[in-house]
């Protein structure tokens, strides 16, 4: 920008405002300088924009358009790039990196880990994990917050769309799709809706038209999780088990604790995450009910999450005969899949319902799993109802809601008072974990989500540009969150244990929560992992 009285141009982001200052942001000189800067970035940028995942949602592309850059003014050398896709979740392509360092700051400040850093100097400068290694070789939790921070296509999710299409087109396969609660609060953004538009019915309609044999809601799995995790919590309280207990729904958080706090693993609930439980149920109970060979079932989870892509491959999770879930699509990939099938506009569809056979019912408690505090609230609803022995009058636990990094409350469980805490993002979780490690934690139950604000702000969600984030701040999380509470309010049943189809399944198949079969199929184990693993 040009400032009256200053000889040189000044950078808008670092110059403090002063009294009587006169600023021209769009003088010819300022525009020319900006243009040259972007042209120089472009001169070292891999310009295969047409086939880039971030095409049409790229901040560099937008700048080029705004500044009217129509040609490559500077041609020359390119920095030798690293293309790395060894981890199941994140792909790094430094040929597209603009060295803005947003990913580095996100990993360090939001998650408090610092997997990414700069290396080399000058023209050879690159961003990546230590030794320029793959994300699978370092203590990366695969949350994907760096991916949503990236303004260009340098950090992206590893796509599974092709596998899914292959399965859909395989006549022998029964392809079942399940969608996580947080997806419905963000998928609309990919189709031009304002942030936080609830598109549940349209999403179901579009997915059915993609050719999935069934479209279910992961909320059914969430209700199962509450039964398993709630039972586990009650057992631990009654039998003097390891407390506080941590929730185990967030695979990013699981990776984090395995790397950074392996000594606290006994505190982690052994319950699998909702989509894994649901996958296990689909390949056993549902398969049996429908008389389908489970080897022919292909389960696709549509998730707001990148870490789920690593979770389905965990050897610890393969407790049944088959992998619980066969492929994970992020919210963004789901939108790409729908568009690939020719549906550019999901508004043309009437709202449709999820498939209802055997595993179709879900409660409001499942819906709010998608936001920080939701799992806690859902668990409290069921646990309290079990202990009270009668339906709850008020199912709203307002103290669980909101976007604070750490929330806590004292809850009365049938006369016994316990402290609970809710946290999301690892930088907020750390102090709580240190307390537990030191033995000074007053809590009985702690919900931990890997991403700040919970799944609604997951690494697989629709990407909001840095410029928009600068304008609206953290509001976007609130918008998505409110959407989920809205759907929760509309549900006739709002306590997980009231899910009749699920109760039928327990009676017919698992017996009861925490039974031997449930332990085998719906629970998992954890083990300490090496933070850094390079040969």
């Amino acid at each position: 920008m040009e400032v009256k009285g200053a000889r040189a141009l000044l950078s808008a982001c670092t110059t403090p405002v002063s009294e009587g200052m006169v600023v021209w942001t769009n003088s010819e000189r300022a525009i020319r300088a900006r243009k040259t800067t972007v042209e120089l970035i472009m001169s070292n940028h891999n310009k295969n924009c047409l086939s880039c995942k971030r095409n049409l949602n790229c901040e560099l592309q937008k700048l080029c358009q705004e500044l009217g850059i129509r040609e490559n003014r500077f041609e020359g050398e390119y920095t030798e790039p690293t293309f790395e896709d060894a981890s199941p979740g994140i792909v790094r392509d430094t040929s597209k990196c603009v060295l803005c360092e947003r990913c580095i700051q996100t990993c360090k400040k939001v998650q408090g880990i610092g997997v990414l850093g700069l290396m080399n100097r000058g023209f050879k400068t690159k961003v990546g994990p230590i030794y320029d290694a793959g994300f699978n070789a370092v203590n990366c939790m695969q949350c994907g917050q760096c991916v949503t921070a990236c303004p260009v296509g340098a950090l992206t999710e590893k796509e599974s769309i092709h596998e899914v299409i292959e399965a859909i087109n395989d006549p022998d396969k029964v392809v079942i799709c399940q969608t996580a609660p947080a997806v419905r609060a963000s998928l609309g953004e990919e189709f031009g809706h304002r942030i936080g538009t609830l598109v549940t019915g349209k999403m179901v309609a579009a997915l059915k038209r993609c050719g999935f044999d069934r479209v279910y809601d992961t909320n059914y799995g969430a209700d199962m999780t509450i039964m398993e995790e709630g039972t586990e919590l009650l057992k631990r309280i009654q039998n003097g088990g390891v407390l506080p207990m941590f929730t185990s729904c967030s695979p990013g958080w699981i990776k984090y604790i395995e790397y950074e706090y392996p000594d606290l693993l006994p505190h982690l609930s052994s319950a699998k995450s909702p989509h894994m439980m649901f996958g296990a149920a689909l390949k056993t109970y549902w398969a049996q009910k429908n008389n389908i060979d489970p080897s022919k079932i292909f389960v696709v989870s549509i998730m707001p999450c990148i870490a789920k892509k690593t979770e389905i491959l965990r050897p610890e999770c393969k407790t049944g005969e088959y992998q619980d879930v066969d492929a994970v699509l992020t919210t963004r990939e789901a939108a790409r899949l729908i568009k690939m099938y020719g549906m550019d506009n999901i508004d043309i569809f009437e709202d449709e319902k999820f498939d209802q056979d055997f595993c179709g019912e879900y409660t409001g408690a499942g819906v709010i799993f998608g936001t920080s505090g939701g799992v806690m609230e859902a668990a409290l609803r069921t646990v309290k109802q079990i202990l009270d022995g009668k339906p709850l009058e008020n199912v709203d636990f307002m103290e669980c809601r909101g976007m604070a990094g750490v929330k806590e409350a004292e809850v009365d469980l049938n006369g016994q008072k316990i402290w609970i805490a809710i946290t999301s993002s690892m930088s907020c979780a750390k102090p709580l974990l240190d307390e537990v490690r030191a033995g000074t934690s007053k809590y009985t139950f702690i919900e931990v989500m890997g991403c700040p604000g919970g799944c609604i702000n997951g690494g697989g969600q629709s990407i909001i540009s840095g410029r928009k984030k600068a304008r609206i701040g953290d509001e976007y999380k609130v918008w998505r969150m409110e959407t989920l509470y809205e759907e929760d309010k509309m549900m006739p049943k709002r306590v997980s244990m009231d899910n009749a189809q699920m109760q039928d399944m327990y009676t017919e198949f698992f017996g009861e929560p925490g039974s031997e079969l449930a332990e085998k199929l719906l629970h998992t184990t954890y083990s300490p992992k090496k933070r850094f693993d390079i040969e």
Partner: protein
Amino acid sequence: MEKLNGEALRKIDEIVARHKDQAGPCIEMLHEVQNELGYIPYEAMEKIAEATGSSPAEVYGVVMFYAQFTTEPKGKHVINVCLGTACYVKGAQQLIDRVEKLTGAAVNKTSPDGLFSLDATRCLGACGLAPVCIIDGKYYGNALVNNDFTNEIRRIVREEKKAGANA
């Protein structure tokens, strides 16, 4: 990746502890580790990161930024060939080729037998003697004409072989 022995780990701990409370201790620690071990192993970066409240990736960034730090174990004998302008004009490239052939070490790498590291350096300030190379801290001038330095490398190889045979 090679495992560090207890002795090296102890040294790293000692260096980190000594500089921990200084202002901007990272570079100091790296210098000492580089001097003690000849390179910066992962374990050192992890320990330095922990002591300075940063992450190993950040410390790695510092290591990669400065040319004097290296993450590869150095050979027993370090050979520097000057690539300054004067040396280059006087045939430093030929010199490098010759050293590569004699030692088996590529530029800025260590030979497979771990005996030699070959580093191409910036101007060493001895342009009058160009082209210049250094073996274990000793300067050899006019190295293309004068055969002292090739003889020295051959002598080292011979001695190491003998030591190897005796051991």
